[in-house]
């Protein structure tokens, strides 16, 4: 159970970014979650509804972009998405790999509403 501190962090980061722009409201939050990073489940939305109440982010929609792990074989340059059983290079069996993507765990952007600029 680590979704509570994760949700608190998402809220804190989003509010800080929104306040810096004098936002009236945050409508959307875009998250990038790599397949190999911390697992987060649907309970985030539950915590979100409670934690964001009374803040600029109340009612904001959370968008999760799940990034599948992409490995690059350093021996034969084959790139592939590993599965549980197939971690090593399926082309040449090499264990010399580079993790190209799949470890992301970040707030990518937010959508805010501001008062019309004067």
């Amino acid at each position, binding site marked *: 159970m680590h979704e509570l*501190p994760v949700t608190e962090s998402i809220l804190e980061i989003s509010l800080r970014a929104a306040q810096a722009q004098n936002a009236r409201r945050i409508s959307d939050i875009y998250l990038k979650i790599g397949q190999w990073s*911390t697992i987060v489940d649907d309970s985030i939305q539950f915590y979100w509804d409670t934690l964001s109440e009374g803040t600029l982010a109340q009612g904001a929609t959370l968008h999760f972009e799940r990034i599948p792990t992409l490995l690059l074989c350093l021996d034969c340059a084959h790139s592939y998405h590993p599965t549980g059983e197939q*971690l090593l290079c399926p082309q040449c069996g090499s264990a*010399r790999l580079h993790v190209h993507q799949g470890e992301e765990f*970040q707030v*990518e952007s937010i959508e805010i509403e501001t008062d019309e600029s004067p």
Partner: protein
Amino acid sequence: MSQTITVVEKILSANDRLAEQNRAKIEEAGVYSINIMASPGAGKTSVILKTIEALKPEMQIGVVEGDTAPVTIDADKVMDAGMPAVQINTGGECHLDAIMLQGALNTLPLDTLDVMIVENVGNLICPANFKLGTHVNVLIASVPEGDDKPYKYPGMYRGVQAVILNKTDLLPYIKFNMDYFRKGVEALNPGLAFFPLSCVTGEGFDAWIAWLKEQAAK
């Protein structure tokens, strides 16, 4: 008016910053620190106790025990071995984080220590993501858990500087393909320090202790 703001900030960045503060405090006291992670029952406490036994003549070792429940079994064992221990009750959280360790650093007699060992909560899902600020993260795998753990929990194997494979005394009784295990570890974390050992027979402990002393002396 609606607009998109680019943020690109790591979700756990606040924890990372606190971890850096912890590190500064640990270094100021001249202490070498280790965060031990593993699934429940892999042998974290056993390895810590045997490490204390081996280093006791020359080093003072403080231990931080993380548990999800307020039971002090593991901390009591450390104190029985003659070393200071602090218990952190995570209140149900599945990992320690930097702020929890910050509290423990204020309680431990840091200035009297040479080495600090943190026993993280038994869990392979997430503790690696919550940095504590220790010098190294060590993962303890154990033979009965099976040889496929690197493949199932890649995130844990990516986030550590050493892997201990405990309970090697059980290798004759359990199907465990050492090559398969090592290949998985190597793929995820090339060149990682690897110590197969047994807390029962003591086999392999010398290499682990030698590595630890070498790291602590750096």
